[in-house]
């Protein structure tokens, strides 16, 4: 992975954010990944990744107003930046180039 490349987990988090269309914060992101992959991910790992993605400039965030059902704490909503969107598209292209022309028979276990 190059320095500005995307890891598999980072891709999943970015895609979840894209799916959530402006309603993305910690809880729904975890749920989205769980729902779509059928795997249960470590919540803490998602928050660490979000922090890293923001440092890389792939997502930007803003705070909501604090609410009582959250113990008076705000939500941090995130959305993809143009860099983030580009990184996702690149990752997909790379994967597609690798898949292109692959004979399904060559995946069969021998």
């Amino acid at each position: 992975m190059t320095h500005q490349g995307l890891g598999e987990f980072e891709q999943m988090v970015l895609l979840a954010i894209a799916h959530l269309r402006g309603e993305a914060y910690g809880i729904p992101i975890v749920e989205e990944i769980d729902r779509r992959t059928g795997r249960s991910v470590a919540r803490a790992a998602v928050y660490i990744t979000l922090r890293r993605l923001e440092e890389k400039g792939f997502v930007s965030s803003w705070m909501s107003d604090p609410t009582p059902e959250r113990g008076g704490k705000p939500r941090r909503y995130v959305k993809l930046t143009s860099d983030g969107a580009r990184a996702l598209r690149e990752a997909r292209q790379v994967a597609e180039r690798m898949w292109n022309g692959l004979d399904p028979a060559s995946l069969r276990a021998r």
Partner: protein
Amino acid sequence: MSAPSRPPRLPRILLRHALPEDTRDVVDGDLHELYMTRRATSGAAAAATWYWLQTLSFTMRFTLDRVARVIRSLAGGDATPSGLDLKLGARMLAKSPGLTLVGGFGMAIGVALAAGAYAFFNSYFYPELPLHEGDRIVALGKFDPKRQREDEQLLHDFRVWQRELRSVVDLGAFLTIQRNLVSETGQGEPIKIAEMTASGFRLTRVPPLLGRTLIDADERSGAPRVVVIGYDVWQSQFAGDQAIVGREIRIGRDAHTIVGVMPRGFRFPINHQYWIPLRFDPRVPVAPGTGPNLDVFGRLARGVTREAAQAELSAIGRHLAAEGPKELAHLEPRVVPYVDIFVNAEAENESTTYALMRFLIAFLLVVVAMNVAVLVYARTVTRTGEIAVRTALGATRGRIVSQLFAEAFVLSGISAAVGLGIVAIGLRMFDDYIASSGGGPFWIDAGISLGTILYTVMLAVLGAVIVGVFPALRATGAQLREAIGSMGSGTKARLGPTWTALIIAQVAIAVAILPPALLKGGQMVQLALQKPGFATGEYLSTQFLVDRDVEASTDSIAARAAMDSSRAIVKKLVERIATEPGVVGVTVTSSDPWGGGHDRVEVDRADGPSERVGYSTVDTSYFRLFGVRVLAGRGFGAADAALPGNQRPVIVNRSFVTELIGGGDPIGRRIRYLSDGDEVNPWHTIVGVVEDFPAGIVNPAERSVRGMYHLAMPGEWDRAKLTIRLRGQTPEAFAPTLRRTAMSIDPMLQLNGTTSLYATYRENTRAAAQLALVIALISGSVLLLSAAGIHALMSFTVNQRRREIGIRSALGGSTRRILTSVLARATRQLTLGVGIGLTMAVVLDLAAGGELMNGTGLLLVPGTAAFMLVVGLIAAAGPARRGLRVQPTEALRAE
């Protein structure tokens, strides 16, 4: 507005510490939101467990992320510690077994202390109430600011609160009584029972496992007598009988019908397994500040905060105070979290003790950490050459730091695991002790909680950072460049004035802290090794108590009559037991032969100051029964017993005569207790002297066995110690006869802790031995670490001067002068440390009013000081002698 329930406090605090600032609030909020949802769907316990697991996961992942970030920032990428680093670390530890053992042992003790203190304080002083919305359960009381304690005669207020208070619902009260549970074979076993209002069960929201809980109708006087039992006794006493509901059991004099069984773990209000209704006849008026001691509890009404409840209670209190008697007007009614009424009220009174304890534990930790860091640093510095080579070969600073961190982490991780094991054993020992003395409150969980494990993991990481990263950063800093520059001419590193200060501090702390610890440990060993000096195996002893079942009565005439009848019961018991076959004699006393109180007394016509003496109360057969010889005068007789209590004579022991009367004739002299107030205590005439008994037992803290005996007859007690001397049968074999006899006289006569004096004594010494072990472990590890630390520092500083020593010797300096100059410097540092330590010891002892050293402890101070001096000098002498052996040519060439 409603104060919503929150996630458990402890993990929240941990989490806030573990998370970076920019993420803290967000994670806190998200977890809060999820916690509330889970709580609504799966209940509080499941939600709390989930929250703890999340805390564990977040703390570990974010801590690792943080470490990785620091290392990446130092290294630019290649610095995350790897499995290979850990393997290398383990190998390095095996290479220097001395350092590993000493450092590891010290760290294990340090971790055990810190994690143990953490587990203890949290479960005892900041517990979570394991009940539904436990944080909304409160206790109501009246605090007496003059006497600094709770006033518990709350019956009058309780009735008013029941009528008027709106902000607290399910208001209830309980008191604990002890009664005999009478078995079918007629033997009695004392049990603790909560006399509780039915609202107590509503408050907990715990449904019964079988049958029903208490209901309001049970509280009416004249209602059938019913009892609800707990899961544990259902299993142990009734073999888990499914058809238990409706069965009758005898508690004291009365038959009670079992109406329900509570589920496992239910022990509300404190640690109860039997519940009967609390009955107060509402037609009988109760004056304020009278009646039985009650604890009052309730649940904050929906949407009410504790502050609002307090405001309402205070308003009612002002109203009551205006109407009630003046001497009660200063009491402050208050609403506190439920547990506080039992725990923190006491903690407040002894807050200085707890603060001191915490300080000492923290202080010990600092000493331990400092020493281990010094040890590791001294070694790391010797590896400067190796580090320099690796740097020259292209290793980044971060790479090297991460390697050293991994090495330290192997050590601290193993130590932490050992420390946690020690904590687990310690907690279990403590739990056993609590269980043997009747069990602890239901909210205490003495096991190793997830929180404690988490805390220990953090300690291990912290330990590795202190022990590995700091020395590594220093070793790879400015000194490294110097080392690279001088590669080939040996390593060169400097220990500046900081290290001199460290040596001095090291010695000072050891000299000041160790003697009191050694003294305390020595005293405990002494206690554990003592033998009582008489055949304890021939005696059966029991603590008896006649329960005066005066139902919530404030009637003093009834109480008086009950007292008289209880005493008659005791008299009958003693007479009946004395006639049983195999019984040599019976005595009733205030305590075991080695128990009793201590107080200051003065002797008339004596010039000396008042002295502390031991005292106990015995009957006329005591000395004969234990074979205690009367040395002068006479023993107690029937004529003495005929006198009123305050005119009765006393008997003193031999040490009393030697130490307080200077060996003169004591018969006819008088003694009295010093009083703290204006009241003057009566004089008691000495009529006899007995030998010191038990001869083999000296309470080391009192340093003397001087004692005196008062007289009280069996019919004058309603609770005391009954001791029976047996011949031809063991105490254990006689115990059932004793229990049956007691039950046949009166079912309200309770016998507690019926066991041989031998077993009682063993139990006493076991506690002393365990305490001695703990103290020895702690002070031993501090001493060992201090000695190792001083040794490392000393040899290091002298080592640095080896070349200087060699050159001086090459230039023809005399061996003696060189050695003297090196040792003189070491001696100066050590002496300064000893001086400061001595001053600290004296100041600490004075501050503690002489209690800390207890006189003899001061004798240990010079010993500790000498030990530290010798260790330091030996450490300095070795390298100095090696320096002298360096060939002059070699020393000069190196220069």
